[in-house]
C-alpha cells in the first residue's frame, strides 16, 4: 500500500513538472499566477436605462454572447445570438448587419459573466469601436420587465 502511495505521488509530481515544463516552452504559455481581473471602465459598460433607450429607438444592436441553448431559453427581444465561444462560426452571418459605427450592446448573464466582455473585446479588435456591454444583462433586462423572446429567432 505504501508503495502505491509513493507511486501515486510520483505521478502527481511528474505530471505537474511536465505541465510546468510544457507551459514554459510553449509559445502560448500562460503566466503561472492568474493576473488580476481588468477593472471595468465606465466607457465599456452601458447602464440598463441607456440600453433601454437604445432598444426603444431601434438604433442599437443587441448581441447575446451566451450559448445558443441559453439564447433559445430566453433573450432580449430583437437580440441576435453571437456565442463568443463559437465566434468564428457565427460572426460571418452577423457581420453584414453591422457597421463600424453601429452602437452594439453585448450581454450575457450574471454579475460574474465575462462572455459579453470577451465579445466586446473581439468586436473591438475587428474595428467595431462603438460596442459596450450590459452587466448582468439578461437578468437585469428580465427583472426590469422589458420585452423578451424565447426560441432561436430574434
Amino acid at each position, binding site marked *: 500500500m505504501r508503495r*502505491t*502511495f*509513493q*507511486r*501515486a505521488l*510520483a*505521478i*502527481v509530481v*511528474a*505530471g*505537474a513538472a*511536465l*505541465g*510546468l515544463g*510544457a*507551459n514554459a516552452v*510553449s*509559445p*502560448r*504559455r*500562460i*503566466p*503561472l*499566477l*492568474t493576473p488580476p481581473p481588468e477593472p471595468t471602465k465606465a466607457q465599456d459598460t452601458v447602464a440598463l436605462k441607456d440600453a433601454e433607450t437604445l432598444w426603444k429607438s431601434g438604433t442599437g444592436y443587441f448581441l447575446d454572447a451566451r*450559448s445558443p*441553448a441559453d439564447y433559445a431559453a430566453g433573450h432580449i427581444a430583437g437580440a441576435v445570438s453571437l456565442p463568443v*465561444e*463559437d465566434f*468564428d*462560426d457565427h460572426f460571418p452571418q452577423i457581420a453584414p448587419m453591422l457597421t463600424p459605427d453601429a452602437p452594439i450592446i453585448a450581454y450575457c*448573464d*450574471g454579475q*460574474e*459573466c*465575462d462572455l459579453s466582455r470577451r465579445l466586446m473585446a473581439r468586436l473591438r479588435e475587428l474595428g467595431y469601436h462603438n460596442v459596450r456591454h450590459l452587466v448582468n444583462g439578461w437578468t437585469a433586462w428580465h427583472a426590469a420587465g422589458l420585452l423578451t423572446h424565447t426560441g432561436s429567432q430574434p
Partner: protein
Amino acid sequence: MKWINLILRLILGGIFLASAIAKIWDVQVSHVHGIQFSNVPDLATFARDVTSYHVPPRELANLVAITLPWIELLAGGLLVCGIWKQASALVITALMVVFLAAIGWAVAHGYDIRCGCFGTVDARKVGIMALAQDAALFVIAVWLAWRREDKPQPATETNP
C-alpha cells in the same frame, strides 16, 4: 471479474486521456470548421474555465490549469497501458474528489458556468448532471484503486 476490471480501466483511463488532450491542446469541435486544435500546449481557455469557478485563492487558478491536465494525461495513460494501475487509479480518485468539490462549490454558489471537464469540446454546464457523471467516475476509480492486484505479491518481498 478480470474482464470487467479491464473494461473499467480502459473506460476510466480513456476518459482521462481524452479530457487531458482536449484541455492541453485546446481542442474545439464546430459544425463549420470540424475539429480544430492548437499545435502547441495552449491552456488559456482552460485557465479561464478554472478561474470562472471562483474558488479562492484566485491567483492559483493558472497554476492548477497548467499542471492538472498533465497529471490527468499521465494517470490516464498509465491506467490504459496497465502500468502502476493501482497508483494511477488512486491519483484519479483524488482528482475526482477535487472535481466533485469544485463542481459542488459552483453549484452551491449558483454559478452558471461551463464545466470545462473536457475543455471546450462539450459545452456542458456545471450542475446535477455533471455531479452525477463525476460521481460515477469516482466510484469506478475507487473500485480500481482499492481492489487487490490481480497478481499475488511475489514471495521474495516477504523474505529478509
